[in-house]
């Protein structure tokens, strides 16, 4: 929404041939056109993005970006089933240098599978070395491993189930689903306040415990977390699916 304003400013400064690519970055990526990411971004997100070293295992063995998967360029397409289920996952491809022409056919195909964040690393491995990004030798990953970056306040499934099972004194599990939903069963030890009643009934909750919210999918749990946090409570939320069927708990699919 900034480009029309920027274009106007350029015209005011005397530029005579000013246009706007109005559809912007989202349309560029959706069309599968090559998009460049930077060392700066990758350094910050390392561990929560899929990094694919397309130079192949031999080059990767001599040195690769920390956590990268070695996958020769001509094999990427055949490895489709390895790619994460989450279509918003960041998939960052690199080669020796910027190498757009070499990589763009493959990134276009991968974007065509529905992935919304497919990037080529600007500068490639050489640029990464220049920016002193963390590297590894040996220990080459050959299978894609993807861990989504947690939202602020998110609790892991493991820790959540540990709290449900062991009920530590300083934690409280808050089920924010509706009455109709909780009638089908609740997690043992959990307290129910539907998220739409939470602001009204917030005083029912203890301030000396950490409150961990959950719902059916994670969306309302996050809303509940925000309400609690804004009211000064110590809280986290489970951003994951929970189902309770005849006292059997199905939880934490991530």
């Amino acid at each position, binding site marked *: 929404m900034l480009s029309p304003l920027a274009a106007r400013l350029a015209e005011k*400064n005397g530029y005579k041939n000013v246009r706007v690519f109005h559809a912007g970055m989202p349309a560029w990526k959706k069309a599968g056109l090559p998009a460049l990411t930077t060392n700066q971004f990758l350094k910050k997100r390392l561990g929560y993005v899929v990094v694919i070293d397309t130079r192949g295992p031999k080059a990767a063995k001599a040195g690769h970006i920390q956590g990268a998967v070695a996958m020769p360029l001509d094999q990427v397409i055949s490895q489709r089933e390895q790619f994460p289920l989450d279509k918003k996952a960041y998939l960052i491809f690199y080669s020796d240098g910027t190498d757009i022409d070499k990589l763009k056919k493959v990134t276009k195909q991968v974007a065509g599978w529905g992935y919304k*964040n497919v990037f080529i690393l600007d500068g490639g491995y050489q640029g990464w070395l220049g920016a002193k990004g963390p590297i590894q030798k040996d220990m080459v990953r050959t299978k894609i491993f993807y861990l989504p970056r947690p939202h602020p306040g998110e609790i892991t499934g493991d820790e959540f189930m540990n709290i449900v099972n062991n009920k530590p004194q300083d934690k409280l599990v808050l089920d924010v689903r509706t009455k109709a939903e909780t009638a089908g069963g609740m997690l043992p030890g959990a307290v129910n306040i539907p998220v739409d009643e939470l602001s009204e009934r*917030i005083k029912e909750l203890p301030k000396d415990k950490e409150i961990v919210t959950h719902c059916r999918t994670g969306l309302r749990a996050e809303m509940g977390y925000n309400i609690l946090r804004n009211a000064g409570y110590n809280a986290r939320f489970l951003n994951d699916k929970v189902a309770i069927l005849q006292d059997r708990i199905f939880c934490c699919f991530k």
Partner: protein
Amino acid sequence: MFRTLSPKPLMALAAAALMAAVLFLPQAASAKVIAHKKCMKCHAEIKDQENMVAGDFQSRSNKAKSISVLVGKGKNVIVKFTKDTTVENVPSIKKLKKPIPVQVTYVKKGNDLVATEIVAKPKIEVPEDKMVGVKELAALVAKGPDKGNFMLIDSRPPIRYFEGHIPGAVMMPFPKMPDMMGKLPKDKNTPLIFYCGGFR
């Protein structure tokens, strides 16, 4: 629809009047606008608004009849909606998509914020001949700025540029642009193409 032309609107009016009266009580008058910093950059006038939440729409729960609005780094405000909540610039609440900026006017009911009106950021009109399509731009970018004789400018915040940009684009965040004019080509006839996160 026409059935509601009975005493109901009157009651609604009375209720609204009552609500308005409540709003002007001293303790309620202190309800300041909760707005994202970036909203204030262009909409400084909303700082005098009462009972408004301004920020980026994040999510909607139909079960909880609530929306979540991002009003600062990691800070979300939850506002309820009802069947009487009006929406502007999108056909319905369902059509709000993350992260469209919204201004939400609310009334306070107990601790709850209940939206009376949600105004989404309106479409920006750009004349047809000032727009570049994705195909034309792709062809230009493949040539490169030198051969294609153009400059491609990314107006988004630096964090967006670092995440991912079009090859050959120059980073020039719109708020910083007045100080960066020297980066634009000397020849004022050079074609300039600006882009950002897109707009409707």
